[in-house]
């Protein structure tokens, strides 16, 4: 009898979800979880209703309020950050009720950023297909799920049928081997990777992160790693599950319990990539040589070690890349050759679906203890979920942030997109995932970095290398 063909994790999950082969590479897939947040999910619910359709599998759908919510600590009651945001949240709330789906609403103690609470509550599980009108749904790959971002029309299709028509992507494996040096985190791994392979390198691929450095990462750091798959244009990024994943998920609210847990666990253990399985592309990164990374431009590929100087556009490989670098420098108001550590900052921001989990806040607070934010710097910490916030407060981390001079916010997407009218014409060092022009507010100049680098920079008043600030 023939041995079964060696398959990758992604192939196994994909094969398990195929309802119908529609030909020419397109498949009708079963969708295990649909997440609908207030910005794009609200539109999906509205369009389903306008089409006169109903939710096919309401039990598999979660509504979540995160994007439009104010995170300001003094806001009571908490609601949308602008009048129209208040209306959209209200509409999402009513539509969720009418559809009979679960809604994790503002006053809910479980409330938070979609990609933070989905693993936290066990909504995301290994081997599940999870979609959301949000490109950072790839984050959920960190728990061994296959999550990806979809549009509004696709979302309406999923809500109506609990299926999706999807073209099978190619597979890529990115191996990080060796031990990470001190001061270097998952955020630095992913930024360094994007700097090397470019912001478009993952287009058309489902990306598996592997290697000893990835296996050594706790689950929360794996979520950070997968969060930025889409920043090199990979719609899907994941770390196949292992014992750390299972330990993380046990007893989570929507994770299977009792005998169902044992059955699930036996199944999950069959999912990792088989020895000898082939990928369409392979990339290898030596984790031992990585340094803390910071972006200088307006694409995530505009990234260098914090110890470096801004490269000259003339050194770019082609005319288009050169033009992009020149435009980025003009937007960022920076000159080639500038030392990253000479760049003064106005705002230091810790938050978002990339880096606002408890482990991120612990790292930042560990550095901030006994230190002060530099004069003239606005420092903001927005926990990724109300659960994270409560846990951090139980450990006294909020006092560390507040004593250092940080604002300590309520949970939500905060100032990642649009800046909430607060960030304008400023230079921000941010633990978020996008440094696009105007992303964090009009004319806001964003530098992406790890929470540790953000904390160090907040104290220094300029972009700082945490490795040189010990003691």
């Amino acid at each position, binding site marked *: 009898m023939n041995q079964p063909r060696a398959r990758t994790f992604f192939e196994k999950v994909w094969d398990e979800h195929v*309802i*119908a082969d*529609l030909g*020419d*590479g*397109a498949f*009708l897939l*079963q969708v*295990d979880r649909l997440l609908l947040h207030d910005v*794009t999910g609200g*539109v999906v619910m509205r369009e389903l209703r306008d*089409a006169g359709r109903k939710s096919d599998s*309401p*039990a*598999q759908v979660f509504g979540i309020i995160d994007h*439009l919510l104010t995170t300001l600590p003094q806001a009571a009651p908490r609601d*949308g950050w*602008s009048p129209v945001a208040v209306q*959209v949240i209200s509409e999402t709330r*009513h539509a969720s*009720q*009418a559809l*009979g789906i*679960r809604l994790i609403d503002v006053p809910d103690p479980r409330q938070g950023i979609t990609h933070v609470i989905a693993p936290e509550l066990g909504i995301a*599980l290994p*081997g*599940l297909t999870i979609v959301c009108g*949000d*490109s950072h749904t790839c984050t959920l790959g960190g728990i061994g799920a296959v999550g*990806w*971002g*979809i*549009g*509004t*029309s*696709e979302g309406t*299709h999923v809500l109506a*049928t609990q299926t999706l*028509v999807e073209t099978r*992507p190619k597979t890529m494996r990115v191996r990080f081997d060796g031990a990470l040096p001190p001061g270097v985190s998952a955020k630095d791994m992913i930024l360094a990777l994007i700097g090397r392979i470019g*912001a*478009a390198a993952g*287009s*058309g691929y489902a990306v598996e992160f592997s290697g000893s450095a990835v296996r050594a990462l706790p689950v929360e750091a794996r979520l950070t790693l997968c969060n930025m798959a889409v920043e090199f244009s990979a*719609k899907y990024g994941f770390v196949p599950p292992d014992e750390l994943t299972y330990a993380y998920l046990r007893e989570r609210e929507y*994770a*299977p319990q009792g005998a*169902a847990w044992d*059955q*699930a666990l036996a*199944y999950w253990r069959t999912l990792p990539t088989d020895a000898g399985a082939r990928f369409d592309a392979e990339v290898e990164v030596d984790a031992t040589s990585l340094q803390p990374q910071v972006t200088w431009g307006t694409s995530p590929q505009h990234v260098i070690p914090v110890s470096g100087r801004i490269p000259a556009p003339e050194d770019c490989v082609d005319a*288009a890349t050169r033009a992009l670098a020149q435009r980025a420098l003009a937007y960022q108001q920076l000159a080639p050759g500038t030392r990253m550590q000479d760049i003064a900052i106005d705002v230091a921001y810790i938050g978002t679906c990339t880096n606002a989990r408890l482990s991120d806040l612990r790292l930042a607070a560990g550095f901030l203890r006994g230190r002060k934010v530099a004069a003239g710097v606005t420092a903001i910490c927005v926990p990724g979920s109300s659960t994270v916030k409560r846990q951090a407060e139980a450990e006294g981390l909020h006092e560390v942030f507040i004593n250092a001079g940080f604002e300590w916010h309520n949970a939500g997407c905060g100032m990642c*997109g*649009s800046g909430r009218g607060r960030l304008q014409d400023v230079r921000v060092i941010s633990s978020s995932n*996008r440094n*696009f*022009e*105007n*992303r964090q507010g*009009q004319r806001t100049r964003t530098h992406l970095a790890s929470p540790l680098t953000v904390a160090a920079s907040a104290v220094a008043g300029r972009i700082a290398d945490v490795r040189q600030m010990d003691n």
Partner: protein
Amino acid sequence: MESFTRLTGVAAPMLRPNIDTDQIIPTRFLARLSEDGLGEGLFAEWRTQADGTPDPDFILNRAPWDRAQILVAGANFGCGSSREAAPRALRQRGFRALIAPSFGDIFYNNCFRNGIVPVRLAPDIVESIGTRLLQGRLAGCELSISLETGEVHIPGSGETFGFGTPPLLRRMLLEGLDEIELTLAHAGAIASFRRSDRQRRPWAYLQDPSFPPKEATP
């Protein structure tokens, strides 16, 4: 769904790579109670100057490109956020086709569902077409695109470039088909899949929420 068969129209060059969906429509235009008016946000930060007046240098503010229906863009156009507001804003401002060496994966799918055909051509061809458009070397700054034949044609010349599209999405766009109806035709396969899947992966199916569905209150 809106269909697309063929089009001859003004094409505007915007050859920068990695134009992300935040640039196509900034986040501040996304919180809204109706999808109408998304076009107002199209390239909002680029279209206007700091004082709110139109930037005369921005390509889509200049004739003849202010009535462009085709955009010729750099690689990885539409990368970043999944917001379907991006193709919708383009469509509301009259765009029916986009030509680029590559597109963001989510954006690419979203285009087909909004009456826009995304055309992938080789980088050197895109570069050549874009440069000639910018230099006014193509008659009327026009291009012809046919989804039926899968070809881009430069009017008044013999130049024709073939392009491929995923067959299912192509047929949906050509015929303006309702994707949900297409899927519901597979209802039997869906039901039979779920019967066996529920046995195999029972934990993947959650219990119905504890609260009963209610009618929306105004």
